[in-house]
């Protein structure tokens, strides 16, 4: 697993780009009046956060998880059940869900830190399915397949809005949180440890990297953030059931978004969400569901076979070209 990174975008430049993007995103609801596009935008933001959360363990630490729907589901169900049963607002429930999922993630990390490649993938897959089976069958708690409908009461103090724009800002806030944590990890000691472990575990260990602790912290953080996204999703769709929260297909799509964008980078998952979600929607509307998924499958194969570093690698190449061009112009002027 080697992520070629010939020209990392310098921190200052990426900060400026990030800030500019954020400002743009803040004003989007003022420009776009069509609920459909707002809806799509919120979905993209939610998926961007989810893929970013996945990327912390999947991209930085190199553990391709196919069980992240479990954490998403734990978040969605925790905040929703706390609200329905005890009247606790999802604004608090989201943190309870994050803590629960974080503990689960740490547990999974402890179990799987030794496993490599396909073994790790299959272990996370099995873990996700165990959570799904429990979700479907523990009907006393989750109501099983009947799902949970969030009754529309309370309003903003319960993270329930009639106006879709509000969800835009909630989702944007969530994205800032996940990307912030992701970027902080990338630049921290932990981030360097994780990349070192991903590239060569034995060498890293001999240089004093604390293997278990680094991996478990990454797994827990990733799980906790995925759970936060789950809580926001539940408040947004206002109906959750096992198939839409803990199913295996969801785990696949989470990983897919990050991979298409470019795993192991902070902005890759964001780019991935911006590509995959609208593409899926457009294909579904234009070609119908079955044909859309045919295209989806082909795209997935082509991308991982020809550009395993994801779309972000292409963007970086472009940035480099532009910079070279500017440099050469400057030289010519001088």
């Amino acid at each position: 697993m080697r992520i070629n990174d010939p020209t990392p975008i310098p921190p200052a430049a990426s900060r400026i780009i990030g800030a500019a993007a954020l400002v743009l995103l803040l004003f989007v609801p003022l420009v776009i009046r069509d609920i459909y596009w707002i809806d799509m935008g919120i979905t993209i933001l939610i998926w961007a956060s989810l893929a970013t959360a996945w990327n912390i363990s999947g991209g930085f630490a190199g553990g391709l998880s196919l069980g992240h729907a479990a954490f998403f589901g734990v978040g969605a169900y925790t905040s929703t059940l706390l609200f329905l049963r005890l009247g606790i607002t999802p604004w608090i429930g989201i943190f309870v869900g994050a803590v629960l999922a974080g503990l689960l993630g740490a547990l999974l990390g402890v179990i799987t830190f030794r496993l490599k490649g396909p073994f790790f993938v299959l272990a996370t897959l099995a873990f996700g399915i165990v959570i799904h089976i429990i979700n479907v069958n523990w009907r006393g708690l989750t109501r099983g397949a009947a799902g949970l409908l969030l009754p529309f009461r309370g309003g903003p103090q319960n993270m329930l809005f009639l106006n879709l724009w509000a969800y835009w800002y909630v989702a944007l806030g969530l994205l800032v949180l996940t990307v912030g944590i992701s970027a902080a990890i990338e630049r921290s000691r932990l981030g360097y440890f994780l990349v070192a472990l991903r590239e060569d575990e034995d060498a890293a260990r001999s240089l004093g990297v604390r293997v278990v602790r680094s991996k478990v912290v990454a797994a827990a953080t990733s799980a906790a953030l995925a759970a936060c996204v789950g809580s926001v999703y539940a408040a947004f769709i206002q109906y959750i059931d096992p198939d839409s929260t803990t199913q295996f297909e969801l785990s696949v799509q989470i990983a897919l978004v990050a991979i298409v964008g470019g795993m192991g980078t902070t902005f890759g998952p964001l780019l991935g969400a911006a590509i995959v979600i609208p593409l899926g929607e457009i294909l579904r509307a234009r070609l119908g569901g079955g044909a859309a998924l045919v295209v989806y499958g082909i795209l997935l194969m082509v991308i991982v076979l020809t550009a395993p570093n994801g779309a972000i690698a292409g963007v970086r190449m472009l940035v480099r070209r532009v910079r070279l061009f500017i440099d050469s112009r400057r030289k010519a002027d001088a």
Partner: protein
Amino acid sequence: MQLVLQIVANGLLIGGLYALLAVGLTLIFGVLRVVNFAHAEFMMLGMYGAYWLWSIYGLDPYISVFLVTPVIFLLGVAVDRLIIQRSIGKPDVTVVFATLGLSIFLQNAVLTLWTADIRSVSTFATGSVFVVGGVRLSVAMTISFAAAMLFALGLWFFLTKTMYGKGIQAVAQNRRAAALMGIDVKRAYLITYSVAVAAAGAMGVLVAPIFTIFPRVGQTQIVTIFVIVVLGGLGSVPGAVIAALLVGIIRSGAGFMFGTAWGELAYFAVFLLVLIVRPQGLFGRRGAEVYGG
């Protein structure tokens, strides 16, 4: 006692079906180091092959299996050339998601071509049983069980007793050294992949009289098969067979005792436990899980 025997027999028979898929999957992993997420889709294609030949030409699946299997073999050759060979030696992400993409593609291509209609094949074997000591065995299941065991045995013989098979084993152990010894590694990959998916296709034909046929039918199997190959030790053919029979019996027994839903949980629990305690599986090479190939 009668009941216990019947539960074990049911478990063994269904385990035999799993085995035919699991042996191929584990072989692909052992030799190519690729997790073939699309494996059960070849079974699905085999089922459709059996269905069309039966409904249009009235061919019994036990005859059409000899027509469908070579076709699936050729499909395997094409997939190997187009996708699998290109993903070998690439990062894990390519190896895992290329075949996942193939699985999505095949499922939905079939959905688009032949609709979501649920089809079925009924032959003399569909409802017939024979009774051994009070235990009832389905004829169709017994035939596919026998086919699975024969395939596994034949494969084992091929791998351990023939020159070519030994060559493939050498590739599995160390592809660079094998190449240096003059073994055509790419050809070994091609043969391995195509034989394994052809076996999955053959299984599809053989179970067509038992199961209904629809585009997502492969999804009903694939996760169970993964559990089996890891339990048996990824790459180990005898391990896959024994684990398949074991999972069949655990599922059948736990399903009877705790109900089907919680019975499902039982073998996943066993699976996770094995991963923690003995991650190389029951029969896998020690250390494989750490080096990952």
